[in-house]
């Protein structure tokens, strides 16, 4: 099958949905002729013009506000944060206006907020954040975070068609580093369905985003040591596919939670809690969480590597669990 980069898959999803549905349009900073700072909307302006590829002032509040208002008024906006870090400037619009909207008044908001996130790019504390735990804790926002070009396309199409607000976390490091098979036609990867990206028998590792690839790398290395890792890629954090995670865990009885975000109060803590609450008796060893250090993302490559979760961290966790 044809291969696309992760970033290209995202673009294709947007383009196909725009072609298929007049209500779908793009709004964000520098998304026009520039094509977005990571080039994700390249060519869209040329194809669809400035009505459907709307280049905005520096106003995250307005971008999220437009997503809310336009989705209320019949459209399907695909809004972009230039970096997910900047959502803090529109936090009230996202958390106070969008998130509780359906609860308060029963009106749904079919918009997508694309949030390029994550580190490994040597661009420091303000361009590398993984802020998903803030949203995860906040009722009313769906959250997805694809790890492959295939999922990137399919999840984005599903997100655009979903009737509720979806925060779509796309990992910047994967844009033009990761290639994979992507069908040409349009397809959905349903929200709320995890995937087993590697079957294994000894230990389950649950992850999402870039970190899934670290897990894959670790799994290959561990195989040589005779440790078999099963990798669950959550793909969606909300809705959360507890079943797939629990089923995998009940098979292996040992589990690692891996994410790039800060460990403390991160999504991993919730996942661990769910395992303890719903499958405690299956635990053959204490579950292990791996996440980033509890500091801002450092700029220097040496410091950032030290800050981020590493393959080595996974190896150590797996060895510990294996021998437990």
């Amino acid at each position, binding site marked *: 099958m044809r291969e696309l980069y992760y970033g290209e898959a995202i673009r294709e999803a947007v383009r196909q949905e725009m072609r298929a549905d007049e209500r779908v349009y793009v709004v964000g900073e520098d998304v026009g002729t520039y094509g977005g700072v990571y080039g994700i909307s390249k060519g869209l302006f040329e194809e669809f013009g400035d*009505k459907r590829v709307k280049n905005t*002032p520096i106003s995250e509040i307005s971008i999220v*506000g437009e997503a809310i208002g336009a989705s*209320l008024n019949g459209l399907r906006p695909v809004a972009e944060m230039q970096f997910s870090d900047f959502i803090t400037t529109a936090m009230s619009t996202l958390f106070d206006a969008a*998130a509780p909207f359906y609860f*308060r008044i029963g009106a749904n908001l079919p918009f997508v907020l694309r949030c390029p996130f994550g580190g490994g790019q040597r661009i420091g504390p303000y361009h590398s954040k993984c802020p998903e735990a803030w949203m995860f804790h906040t009722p009313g926002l769906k959250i997805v975070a694809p790890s492959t070009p295939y999922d990137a396309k399919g999840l984005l199409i599903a997100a655009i068609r979903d009737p*509720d607000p979806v925060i779509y976390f796309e990992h910047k490091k994967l844009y033009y580093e990761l290639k994979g098979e992507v069908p040409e036609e349009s397809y959905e990867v349903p929200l709320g369905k995890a995937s087993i990206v590697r079957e294994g028998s000894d230990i389950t590792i649950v992850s999402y985003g870039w970190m899934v690839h670290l897990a894959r790398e670790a799994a290959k290395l561990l195989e040589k040591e005779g440790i078999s890792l099963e990798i669950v890629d959550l793909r969606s954090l909300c809705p959360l596919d507890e079943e797939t995670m629990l089923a995998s865990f009940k098979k292996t009885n040992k589990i690692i939670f891996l994410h790039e975000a800060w460990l403390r109060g991160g999504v991993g803590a919730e996942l661990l809690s769910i395992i303890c609450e719903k499958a405690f008796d299956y635990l053959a060893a204490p579950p292990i969480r791996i996440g980033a250090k509890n500091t801002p993302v450092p700029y220097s490559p040496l410091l950032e590597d030290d800050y981020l979760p590493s393959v080595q961290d996974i190896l150590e966790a797996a060895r510990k669990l294996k021998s437990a």
Partner: protein
Amino acid sequence: MGRHLKVAATENRESITIPREKLLSMYYYLLLTRELENRVLTLYQNQNPMDPLIVGKGYLSTGQEAISVGSSSTLEKDDWFCASHRDMGAHLVRGFTPREVFLQYGCREGSITKGRDGNVHFGDINRHMIPFISHMGANLPIGNGVAAAALYKGEKTVVIAPFGDGAASQGVIHEAMNYAGVFKLPVVFVLNNNQWAISTPISRQTAAKNLYERAIGYGFPGKAVDGNNVVEVYHAVKEATDRARRGEGPTLIECRTMRLTGHGTHDPATYVPKEELEMWKKKDPILVCRHYLTEKNLLSPEEDKKVQERVTAEIDDAVEYARSQPLIKPSPELDRVFLKM
């Protein structure tokens, strides 16, 4: 503070005539709003706290009704209104019934938010009423989005987005107005300058001489009107909605008025100088409107009495009805935060 009271002389707008029914309808809604909110206050002050009809707190627009009634009266059915917390008038104009309002206040079965949100935080997307969000200016960027979608779809609808003099200090208002300017969005920003933000007078809210002049910084027109004169408010806002409908972009209308009650039903507002209140009470929007109608021979004393009786009866009925309804009970359906789970 005094410096904020002067209102730029309004141009002679007698040329745009308002049909008699519109004038009478505005008068009716001024009265209805007043009566409804007076009742909210007396109920709040006299109710059994263990079985309240006014749950939590109430927010009133007493003395400022002309802004909400006058501005919303310019709208067509398909236009949109993004409510602030001083917009009971607009809710009534846009078709909410007093019964619905008291059901909402009382968290009763049949209330529009089903008890999930309270007091003036209600709306209805089908009626193109966007409910107030507490973070003050929070509705403006949503109003922009609604307006952007109207442009996108080629519809000729407009949006009214009101906010207060206190809210005017917030960043969200700046972002929304600048954005509306760039895209020439069909939005009319209605600034309710009631000179207070809870206990903070406008002089401590901004050093600006005139809030409407902020429009200069966004590249669209701004003007001030007497917020206690429903006819003037209507004229100014109508001019702006017409402009918006013609595709010429947003306008900022600063309506100058005074908050005659406390910030909410719980606030005696002892910090507001008595003389100021007294002065403004003389400019009560209902008196102003009644005087206008009488002068123009559009309302006889008998008719006036009839409207007042009608209004009282409606509110009596609404209170009684709301009281007769059971409280909303928890149910899984009410816990939904998504349309599609």
